[in-house]
């Protein structure tokens, strides 16, 4: 059982690291602000959540584990709100998504 938890946690940690890397690559490579925002959202939610769940499995049922659960809950609330707010602020300040313009032109 312990070994199972150990390997599951490492699997989750590696998956989280993978999604963080994908998010970072996306911020660099995606064409416009909104799609980059989407990539940053992956890092914030999926990457961080998987890393934290992996760490929670490592910590077990202890004070550290409970604190990590609270950080996870905090991130699950704050990251989407932050992403949404930034995107909305960009939209209201007049930044148009790039793909929409292309469709209109063609």
């Amino acid at each position, binding site marked *: 059982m312990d070994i199972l938890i150990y390997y599951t946690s490492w699997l989750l940690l590696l998956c989280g690291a993978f999604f963080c890397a994908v998010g970072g690559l996306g911020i660099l490579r995606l064409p416009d602000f909104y799609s980059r925002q989407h990539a940053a959202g992956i890092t914030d939610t999926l990457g961080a959540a998987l890393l934290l769940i992996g760490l929670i499995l490592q910590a077990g049922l202890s004070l550290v584990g409970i604190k990590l659960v609270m950080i996870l809950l905090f991130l699950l609330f704050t990251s989407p709100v932050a992403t949404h*707010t930034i995107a909305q*602020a960009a939209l*209201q300040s007049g930044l148009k998504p790039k793909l929409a313009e292309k469709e209109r032109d063609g």
Partner: protein
Amino acid sequence: MSNFVDIALLAFLALVALAVTRTLNLFATVALTGIYSLLMASIFTTLDAVDVAFTEAAVGAGISTVLFLATMALTTSHEKPHHHHNWAAIMATLITGSALVYGTLDMPHFGDPQAPIHQHVAPHYIEISPNEIGVPNMVTSVLATYRGYDTLGETAVIFTACMAVLLLLQRDRRGGNRNVMAVPDADQRRGGQSMQHAMILRVFSKFFIPLIFLFGLYVQFHGDYGPGGGFQAGVIFASGFILYTLVFGLEKARQVIPPRTLQALVAFGLLLYAGTGIATLVMGGQFLEYKALAHEATHGEHLGILFIELGVGITVAAVMTTIFFTFAGRGRS
């Protein structure tokens, strides 16, 4: 492995520092300084200096970023490009830099147990403080009791900084507040208004600001047992107020805590700290010798640390909020 982590963090630090000097867009620069602070906090964490890391993350990455952004709302967000090199400045930087690097050659090696810092008073603190002060977090006992004068000085520095900002930026009250009426608040004109219509953000803030304050209280009063204390708690409190101001506007925030109350709190925290020192004098001890506060020595120490940490927390929270209010209320004139 830990060497690898250290080297990677330091390399990132150098890269970020270079990027800061190369970037002309000041928004990007501010974001980079935030990253720099977070990296610094990670380095402190790997060095087991959790209290310092906490302060660095809260002050460096949190509040200073917000204050920089508030400053840019008053000035400009683009640095003027420099086309010519100032050779005198480059020479001065190079000479100072190499002198500093030369100076490090004399310093003890990293983690050397024979280093003077580990020989002087640190062993005394580690041996004596658990019994003498009775506080599990040794950082707090050093900060609040052994180095109580220094912390009083730091609090006074923060107080002075706040006074300086107020003197420089606060509008002339005798002028009948005409400027405040004429110019809308900076944050309301610049995107703040749209933010006030962002429903998700408003609902989220209403739900989360109490939790931020709760966490601030935890950090404030748990500082004796774990990382935390007045400085960090004060910054967390201030960030709660700043979030409220950003989402609901300066006017409403001023109704919640009037600037006059805030300014009174700025002074009150410092007075509480110094007053604790006076109280120990009155009760027969030396200045800031908390033993005198109660019959039992460790009891007195606990009380003293509680009071002075509270004083630090109140001053820091009030100072940060006041500075932000002053910046936000200034507008672009």
